């Protein structure tokens, strides 16, 4: 008697090999290990807690003469914000007249000089000696502003200390004009014309041949604009690098501009020129007089101090205590360590228990196993990291505001980039850890490699005694470049400040820096794929 035996074939066989099944298998492995799930939650909580700590621990304290010490908002004088919402400095000396409609103003500048107390004191502890000289961004020129309220919209053409002629408008915009310094031998002619809300700036070396520098639309410009000659000069800062840090010495400065050949066309109100310090004026003293002008015919000698510029973020710049969005994401470093551990274990645990042989037997195409593991690790990390980043930023901003900090206003899209970029940074770290785990197979070494590769260069760049130039190269070439994605505030060439990684300014553009980390991760994944295929499990 014979019977035909039909071999048993499970019905789900078809489709078993699909990538979705593989992903599902890896996801099941991940979520059923309670240690990893708890680890992810701990990483997220650590990220939030650490991120909120600096804002919560800060104490803005001040003491008025004879009075009790106050804290927080009471100590922070209001900071003007520009048309885009960013904090700005807006103080200068203006010799102006109302401009009620369209019109133009032309002027010749024959000299720009300045001084500041930047020398050595003649007696120990005495007043520093006065130095005759300009700051790189001392400014003298023409301005048309919506009003004299600090932070109002404006457009201006100016001669600068060492940056030639510039047209600037609404604080953050800066266009270069003629190069070179101004002197009686090489005078500079400047012109601003207004047509409706549009202001155009021109410069000329001889008053005959004119070049258009640029045009700006100043939306807040109403009929009664303030316009005229202005002079301002920013703080002189001298930075000395110290043992393991740098400290700055900040001194006021004044600049004096000599204008003549003032010519007006259009709807200028028939009033006398009036001089005034706009925005509180500069820091004048007995040795550093300013905030004044002298007129002889159509020749004006104007002395002013201050600046019309955005305030850069960074702790080494004088001014109000500002906080940037990314300062609440410092906890990403703690999360990064947790992610590196879990993602490496996601691979190395299989090697330790021998599960990898089963995994590879079930799915012989080894590259796909690696891809599935990387995708699951990255996806879980991204979701958890995004949630933690959103909470840290939201709560951090609220805490910092209640403490009296000025939140550095940036466009909403920039905040999205910083938050999503931080989550993506953690996700790519997870991919790197998976790949390094496959290459090294030993969890301790893999975790150490990932953490050291990303965190150590950052520490060396930001918190070490290495010079700033080294820090810039480290944040260009190493995986730590990725933290550029967290930089929310732009570096302003038209404001002298310390734009170094230590101050939160990275040499690469946000996504370019992120791409560096992605490059390392891609390289590691490539090596891991080859090794996974070649080696026995």
């Amino acid at each position: 008697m014979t019977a035909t035996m039909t071999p048993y074939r499970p019905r789900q066989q078809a489709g078993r090999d699909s990538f979705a099944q593989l992903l599902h298998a890896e996801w099941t492995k991940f979520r059923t290990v309670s240690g990893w799930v708890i680890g992810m939650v701990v990483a997220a909580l650590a990220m939030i807690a650490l991120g909120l700590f600096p804002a919560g621990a800060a104490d803005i304290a001040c003491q008025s003469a004879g009075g009790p010490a106050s804290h927080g908002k009471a100590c922070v004088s209001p900071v003007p914000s520009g048309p885009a919402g960013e904090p700005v400095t807006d103080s200068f000396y203006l010799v102006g007249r109302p401009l009620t409609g369209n019109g133009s103003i032309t002027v010749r500048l024959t000299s720009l000089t300045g001084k500041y107390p930047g020398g050595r004191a003649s007696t120990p502890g005495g007043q520093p000696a006065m130095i005759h000289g300009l700051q790189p961004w001392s400014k003298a020129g023409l301005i048309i502003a919506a009003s004299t309220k600090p932070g109002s919209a404006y457009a201006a053409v100016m001669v600068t200390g060492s940056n030639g002629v510039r047209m600037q408008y609404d604080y953050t915009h800066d266009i270069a004009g003629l190069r070179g310094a101004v002197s009686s031998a090489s005078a500079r002619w400047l012109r601003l014309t207004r047509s409706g809300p549009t202001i155009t700036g021109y410069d000329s070396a001889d008053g005959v041949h004119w070049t258009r520098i640029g045009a700006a639309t100043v939306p807040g410009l109403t009929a009664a604009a303030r316009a005229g000659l202005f002079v301002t000069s920013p703080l002189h800062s001298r930075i000395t690098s110290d043992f393991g840090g740098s400290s700055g010495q900040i001194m006021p400065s004044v600049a004096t501009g000599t204008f003549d050949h003032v010519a007006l066309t259009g709807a200028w109100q028939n009033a006398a020129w009036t001089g005034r310090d706009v925005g509180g004026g500069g820091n004048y003293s007995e040795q550093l007089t300013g905030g004044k002008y002298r007129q002889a015919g159509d020749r004006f000698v104007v002395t002013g101090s201050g600046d019309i510029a955005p305030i850069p973020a960074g702790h080494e710049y004088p001014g109000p205590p500002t906080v940037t969005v990314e300062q609440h994401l410092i906890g990403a470093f703690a999360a990064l360590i947790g992610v590196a551990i879990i993602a490496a274990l996601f691979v190395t645990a299989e090697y330790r228990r021998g599960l990898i042989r089963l995994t590879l037997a079930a799915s012989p195409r080894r590259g796909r196993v690696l891809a599935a593991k990387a995708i699951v690790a990255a996806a879980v990390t991204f979701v958890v990291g995004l949630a933690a980043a959103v909470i840290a930023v939201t709560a951090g901003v609220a805490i910092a505001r209640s403490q009296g900090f000025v939140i550095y206003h940036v466009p909403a899209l920039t905040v999205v980039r910083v938050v999503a970029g931080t989550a993506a940074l953690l996700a790519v770290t997870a991919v790197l850890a998976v790949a390094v785990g496959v290459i090294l197979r030993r969890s301790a070494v893999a975790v150490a490699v990932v953490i050291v590769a990303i965190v150590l260069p950052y520490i060396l760049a930001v918190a070490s005694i290495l010079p700033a130039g080294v820090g810039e190269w480290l944040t260009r070439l190493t995986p730590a470049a990725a933290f550029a994605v967290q930089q929310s505030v732009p570096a302003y060439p038209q404001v002298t400040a310390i734009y170094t990684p230590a101050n939160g300014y990275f040499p690469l553009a946000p996504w370019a820096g992120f791409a560096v980390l992605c490059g390392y991760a891609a390289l590691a994944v490539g090596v891991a794929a080859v090794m996974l295929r070649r080696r026995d499990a």
Partner: protein
Amino acid sequence: MSLAAGDALRAEWTKLRTSPGTIWLLAGVTVLTVALSTAAVAATSCPAGIACPADPTRLSLTGVEFGQAVVAVLAVLVISTEYSTGMIRVTLAAMPHRGAVLAAKAAVLTGAVLAAGAVAVLGSALAGRLILPGQGFTAARGFAPLSLADEATLRAVAGSDLYLALIALLSLGIAAIVRDSAASIGAVLGLLYLAPIIAHALLASPHWYNRIQRYAPMPAGLAIQSTAGLAHLPIGPWAGLGVLAGWAAAALLAASITLRLRDA
């Protein structure tokens, strides 16, 4: 008892010596420390005409910040490998006095790290001595070539070696408590590397900044490398190393207690 201690030492020494990764990790401590130190001094210059108030000794010992990670890996593996392979049960069956096992591990590890660390810090100091004068750190400008005859330099160099040994003990203690190698190394590197980052984020609150510089293991311990501007440091060189020693002692104490209380 003394015989037992000797046996424990010899057993741990044999394990460390014959474990395949040890020699590579010890070589890694030396090579990576000297490499980063050399790169740091080569990348720092003191151009003429500019005051360079840097600390050349500390700069030359920058590599310790890298080398300590390798030391931590070695120290973690000394104990976590025993847990992952189950060897710990054999070890503790053979030597039921668990405190003695931990002490023997600590002693053997300290010896190995001190030896590799000595080569690492001496190599780093030598690199500084040879390279720095060419970078503008000349005697004419007040920077004498690095020399161990100088008391402060000797303290920084020898202290950096001690620093590495203390990091090994701290890592050993943490790993004995945590047991899992990946979690242990993550905990150790987090404890070390997060402190300077958080301190930097707290520059605006000097109170907290100084606290971290004084009490966190890495910033406090590395104070031993300072040879200039000591009056401005949040914590003195030996006091700082003492703080790290306190961390290491606390970790080992907690480890010996948990080792005694828990099943292996």
